[in-house]
């Protein structure tokens, strides 16, 4: 029997923001693809939305303590899946990161993200610990490094990087001194040249054209330039939904329904639409931070903040790319970009976050 008392703590604002952003996403996917060969993609997205709502309801009813307690098997299971995908996975656009399961494809790295955060949160929330020790730091690093290593083998650089923000954020909340955090970040930056060696040529091109897009306006710089033109030409009020004179409709924007969905929004609805949507994201993220502050216990705080870190990281990278402050990485915009795995894991993460809030007074 689900405990009905917990639903009094259900966060309607957070829930509304989530639904509004998913809805906007579906609308933008439709706008980006109508009258093309991919015109049915918004229906697929709605189907994924339906599936994710089911998952949402299920996850609300599972106590997050149970999830935290079973995080070790979850973690180990996802590591096994990550190893398996290297052997049996399907290669999609260069990376062997998918399991083909008939009707839908499924990315084990999405499960690994959540499992790793749960496991890390569980590990760090040991109430007997008074201070963060070097041993804890190294252990946390190892927990995160294993799935990262497996994912970089696929190779999927973008997803690999998403494991770092939760680690940094949880170390921060676990009381790591600023001095050490800065040193960790500095040593990370010092490692960047080594990192550069592992990048593929197209990834190097992306970063180089981020620095100077006009260098190759028809090649790697093309996406950035066209996206900027789309956004800028939307001006204050936008060109209107389903306008036939948009960059998106005319196919100028690549990946317009996935990574560049926010450009479609900016072009159709202008700065007004951008303000509304950014506000929804802002409110959603602030509600998540409230949830973390109000969490009953340390493990709740760490789970919420770990999931928040991934969400915030995607948001910064994706929108930053749209406005030209970040290089192209291929990371989707959570809740709005087309893609089942991304939508499912984001909704699941929000479900777990709301779960923590709902159980803040429950014994």
């Amino acid at each position, binding site marked *: 029997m689900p405990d009905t008392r917990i639903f009094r703590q259900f966060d309607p604002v957070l829930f509304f923001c989530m639904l509004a952003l998913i809805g906007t996403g579906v609308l933008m996917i439709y706008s980006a693809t109508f009258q093309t060969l991919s015109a049915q993609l918004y229906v697929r997205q709605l189907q994924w939305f339906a599936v994710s709502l089911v998952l949402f309801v299920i996850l609300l009813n599972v106590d997050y303590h149970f999830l935290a307690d079973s995080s070790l098997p979850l973690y180990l299971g996802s590591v096994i899946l990550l190893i398996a995908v290297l052997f049996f996975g399907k290669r999609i656009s260069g990376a062997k990161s998918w399991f083909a399961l008939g009707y839908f494809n499924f990315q084990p790295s999405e499960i690994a993200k959540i499992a790793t955060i749960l496991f890390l949160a569980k590990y760090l929330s040991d109430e007997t*610990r*008074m*201070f*963060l*020790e*070097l041993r*804890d*730091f190294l252990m946390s690093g190892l927990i995160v490094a294993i799935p990262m290593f497996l994912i970089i083998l696929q190779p999927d650089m973008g997803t690999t990087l998403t494991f770092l923000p939760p680690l940094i*954020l949880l170390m*921060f*909340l*676990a*009381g*790591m*001194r600023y001095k*050490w955090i800065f040193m960790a970040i500095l040593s990370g930056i010092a490692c960047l040249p080594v990192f550069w060696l592992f990048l593929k040529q197209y990834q190097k091109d992306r970063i180089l054209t981020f620095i100077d897009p006009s260098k190759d306006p*028809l090649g790697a710089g093309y996406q950035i330039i*066209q996206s*900027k*033109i*789309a*956004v*800028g*030409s*939307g*001006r*204050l009020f936008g060109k209107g939904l389903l306008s036939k*004179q948009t*960059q998106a409709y*005319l*196919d*100028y924007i690549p990946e317009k329904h996935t990574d560049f969905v926010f450009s479609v929004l*900016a072009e159709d609805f*202008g*700065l007004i639409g*951008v*303000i509304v949507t*950014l*506000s929804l*994201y*802002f409110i959603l*993220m*602030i509600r998540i*931070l409230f949830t*973390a*502050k109000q969490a009953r216990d*340390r493990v709740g*705080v760490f789970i919420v*903040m770990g999931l928040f870190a991934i969400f*915030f990281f995607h*948001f*910064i990278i994706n*929108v*930053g790319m749209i*406005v*030209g*402050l970040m290089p192209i990485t291929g990371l989707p915009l959570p809740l709005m970009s087309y893609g089942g795995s991304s939508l499912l894991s984001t909704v699941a993460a929000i479900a777990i976050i709301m779960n923590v809030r709902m159980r803040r007074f429950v014994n």
Partner: protein
Amino acid sequence: MLGEPIDRELIERRINLIAGIVLSVCLLFFTSFWYMQVVRGPYYAQLAGENIFKEDPIPAPRGLIVDRNRQILAENRLSHNLFLTPRLSRNLHGTLNFLSSVLDASPEEFLRTIKKEGSIQSSSPVLIYQDMSLRQLAYVSARKFEYPELDIHHEQKRSYNYGALFSHALGYVGEITEEQEKNRRFPGAVRRDIVGQAGLERHYNSYLMGKAGLQRKVVNSNGVVLKEFPPTRDPAVPGKVLQLTLDYNMQKATDEAFAEGDRRGAAVAMDIKTGEILVLYNKPTYDPNDFIPRIAPAKWKELISDPQHPLQNRAIQNKFSPGSTFKIVMALAALQEGKITPATTFGCGGGQFIYNRIFRCWKPGGHGAVDLHRAIMQSCDVYFYNVGMRLDIDVIAKYSRLLGMGSLTDVDLPNETRGLVPDRDWKKKATGDKWYPGETISVAIGQGPVLVTALQLASVYATVAKNGVIVKPHLVRAVLDLNNTVIEQTKVQKETVVGISSGNYELVKKGLWSVVNEWGTGGKARIEGYDVCGKTGTVQVVGYDAGKDLAKREKEKYGDHAWFISFAPLSDPQVAIAVFVEHGGHGSDAAAPVAKKMLQTYFSDRKIPPFSEPGTRMAGIKNNRKNTVPEN
């Protein structure tokens, strides 16, 4: 120690800090969007417009060129051009190998063309082969579907229906050169435009070229056209039709006459009343079709290194000594200045000592006692040496200029030359030396420094025929629109020579009549009933004494040039003709028959019947002479 003591307060403090970061990031993004969409919005909107709307030029068909009877001389034919979009290629080398098996170019040449225009990754189409033959077109079209990167465009290309026959008048077209573009030689023409590069095509380019239209399209990023707007706002304006004064039949007759006896040189026929040029002919010549779409380098080299200069429009661009044809200018000057009368007689013994030098007559035996009429009829040199002694060079120059020598006729073709009328000033400027009287004697028979073009001589004789009316020669009769309605008609521009009385013209004309119709040098131009008047001329290419043998042995190089200038009919002159035969020998044999054939065509085409009683009219003139000119 790595960490602070963990407690609730620390965590909440640090979460607040993160909330601050979230707010800052959102504000940063808002500012970025505001900058892009509001501050830079208009700029990006303009870029978006260029992205979406593409404007392609719609080429304007070039105007036709027709002869005076609206026979088409230059028109446009369909040309099939092959374009290749490198980016769409699955296997570029395979495609190029296929193409080189069909078209006359190697894969390397194709590759060079592609790289010259862009790169092998370029997504814009490159013109890689122009003007495929129908057979090549069929081959390529049949297999086009295997090669998505290929595209065939059909384009209008200039075509000259009679090849070399009208080459020097029409000229040819070609792509505008970088220099012409820079100098704005052709206003309104841009890169890749086809413009006139020679002849009338060049002179009347602004009429013929028309104006390219603009086709507005909505295009997506793959270049796929989503919508085409009707080109109503900027339709292509076709070029105007140029109706020439040239007469196809006469031009053809001229060509045939030159072909007989393997002549080369130039010929001009001109309507005396209007100045309309009926024939503008040169030989050797070239085929303007060789220049379309562009001339092969080997062919170009061959044309410009040919010692006979086939590209030159001899009739207006080359100047020659007028030879004996100049004698009528001498006669008019002397008559008008009162230095001779028709009855003035000089004795010709085949030559005469003047200024301690012997000046020979062309007839070694001499003409005996010669008056003006016989002097013109038989082209007696000694007679005109004596006239030359009585005239100053500056006076000769004055009358030459009065009749239009030494200046441009202003015909509507590029690069006309003005010839040369020598006088004391000229000599001083050209050589720093003074004029010697002996030189005047040479000028008196059209040798020495005096130089003319064939068109100038035709014009001088036309002026004499009309008793001193100079009509400006021209090649374009009218500009027509596509419905053959006249838009612009060329106006006849006349000018009257002041200072030569018409009686003197009549005396000279009578002499010119007898050249052809009595026992003169131009008998080979005689047409019964049409009262052809004319004058022969023979121009020495090498010195008279030293060169005689040389000229005989190597006629091709040193043989005399032959002139025959004529007009007809005497009583109502309609047409003037100048024929120049290079190294042709005597004017009487080499040039007069050509003029005869041209005149015959003129009269038979216009169905002008012969005058029934030529004798009576001549008798009238004879009487006239007897009555008006006192015997000396």
